[in-house]
């Protein structure tokens, strides 16, 4: 079972991400509505992947990413950044900050499924 942390302050956005990724069997999801909550959850339980929004109140995605990469235990955690800013400059900045992959909004269900499959170590076959 792969455990995925979905971080976005918009509940609609989190629900959309989870609805898309449910197609990958053997996954379970934990929601975090703030960057701080994400950091807290990551420190208290193991996750196989984090899907992270950049634009959030309190602690933004980049800050979460920087914190995560500064922690030995979390250095290898795959992080998929989901952002409205799809330009090349943003992509580079985000990857420099330690993101494993980058997905621009709006995305299709297939696009995010493909990304996540590639990031999950033992990606399980789709139900479909």
């Amino acid at each position, binding site marked *: 079972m792969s455990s995925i942390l979905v971080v976005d302050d918009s509940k*609609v956005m989190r629900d959309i991400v989870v609805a898309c990724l449910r197609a990958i069997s053997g996954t379970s999801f934990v929601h975090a509505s703030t960057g701080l909550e994400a950091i807290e959850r990551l420190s208290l339980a193991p996750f196989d992947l984090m899907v992270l929004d950049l634009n959030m109140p309190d602690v933004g995605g980049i800050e979460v990413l920087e914190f995560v990469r500064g922690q030995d235990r979390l250095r290898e955690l795959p992080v998929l950044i989901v952002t409205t800013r799809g330009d090349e400059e943003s992509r580079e900045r985000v990857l420099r900050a330690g993101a494993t992959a980058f997905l621009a909004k709006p995305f299709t269900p297939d696009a995010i499924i493909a990304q996540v499959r590639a990031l999950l170590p033992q990606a399980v076959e789709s139900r479909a």
Partner: protein
Amino acid sequence: MTGSTDLKEFLAAYLVEAEEHVSSANARLLALEAAERSGTHDPKALRDIFRSLHTLKGLSAMVGVEPIVGIAHRMEAFVRGFDRAGTAPSLQATDVLLKGLQAIAQRVAALARGEAAAPPPPELLAELDALDAKAGPLAERSGPDLDLEPELVAKLVPFEVEQLVRGIAGGQRGVLAEFVPSPARAAEGLSINTVRERLAAVAEIVRVLPRALPLSPESPGGLSFQLILLTQAADEQIAAAVGVPVASLRPIRSGAVADVPAGAFPDASVPFDDGDGADGFAAGVRRGIVRVDVNRLDEAMEGLATLIVTRFRLARAVADLAARGVNTRELADVVADNARQLRTLRAAIVRVRMVPVSDLLDRVPLLVRGLQRTTHRSVRVELEGGDAELDKSVSERLFPVIVHLVRNAVDHAIETPDERARRGKPEEGLLRISCRARSNTRLELTVSDDGRGIDSQAVARKAGRPVPDTAAGLLALLCIPGLSTRDVATTTSGRGMGMEIVKRIVVDELGGELELETHVGTGTRFTLRVPLTISIVDAFAFECAGQRFVVPVSTVDEIVEVDRSELVQVPAHHGGGPELDVILRRGQAVPVVKLASIFRLDAAASAAGKAIIVRRAGAPIAFAVDRMLGQQEVVIRPMNDTLVRAPGVSGATDLGDGRPTLVLDLVALGTTLNAGAPAPRVVA
């Protein structure tokens, strides 16, 4: 592949969130403007606006609402420039931004109605594009002046430093607290989110910073959160909210700090974009709140309504058994328990449907702002919403009423600044809206202005009626459909527009009351009293001439025995009107109307042993009925069919016997009698 996930499914939830972001951005834009007018700056508000626009853009793109993406994108790009510079947009730019938000709101509303979102108007896009994104010179900043570790200060953005310095100068205490999350604490419900919620009640949270710690039994997650706070509460309260000993708190002082380490003070021009989310906590979107489509609540309410009807049937069946001599004591206990549980459940659902009145009133400043510009009035708005709450469906119906009253006040009642100066009034007019819960069932809302008042002679002339000698009479004239001609409204009365709509909603639809107080030259006040909730109410059931009726408890002043010898007969007025008797209550003559004769039921079959007294605009009126059957909860089904709609009848209900029972609105019935309107005829 799994293309089956249709993102359109998320449209309803999207609309709710979009609406919240639009109203949050509206409120913050106005706050920004107000701050700018008073010579201060509100960078937090600006950042929140940026964030709302950014989220709107992203969400709209996800669910495929392109017109909103286009508008939000342009607005976002413009606002970002100011956020970077730490300055605020000009007043003209604020106008365009408000227009943009309005255009978004219109599209959200259209989608909610099941219509398509119209493409953005080209003029609007052109206006947005034409905004000069150059935000002017960087705002000047004072150096940080805090006894905090430079590493911590370095992580604060300029406005957070400013917020701290200003807060401490203003008499608040700066406090640094540290929360260490752990699985044990999480099990007790103590997490960074709950700590923040608890702190929000006693302190202003300036910033929360995560800090990596070595793994140890004390920090099993290798993590702590440093909370930088401003507060007036005692250390004990803060410590309790965070769940730490008092001794672990540290004061943050602000004083003359000689040298600021190089680089400790971040450059104000650090771009705020996707990645830099340091914007404090007032994101405008409330936390710990589940958004629910109101239709789902209606479904729950509908389910409850059928349960209540089932309970009536049960109670009836038990009563039948008892009448046949069966021992029903245990059964009756169960039925009583069931009734109590249903009441609790009902109260819970009703509470979920309650929204703060302030949500409704918060939209007024924006409305007034727009009206001021088109009418060249200068108006100050005072809102006093308190913490009263009312049912969402009532709130939604009430909003157009408030819009009408506010529009009339600004458009017509409040004079132009010149005219006000000539009359010795302050140039700025005052519009005041206040509301409070009158009881557990009613909300009183007043909308008052210090404008020119209503000239009753002019209104009477216009209406072609005699000059009314009371405020109530004047209000009745104003509410005559069609009496909304602009010349009356603008030049003489100061009122008149849309009053029939106000009356229809407040009185006819919501079953509330509307009152007017006006003084020529000094101002006008409208008072609305509306029920906090509708649809399920506590009601008295009674019998009259063999027919059953119910009347909501909230409308009943008292129920009295009628001793025929106490009745004083007065001649009927208006020729064929119903007979009118009078009883004396506490020295006051109260007219008694025989309900049987109003409804043209067989009056001979009516014993008229009881009277239900209601108040209509403060004056009591008694309705004689045969006997009371008790008090119970009833589900009111509105009668929207115009063929069966009659004044004085607010709906129908089922008392458990499967027969429709009319729910009477005795207050409205009293009104039709006084107006000499034909009495409704009941066919039951």
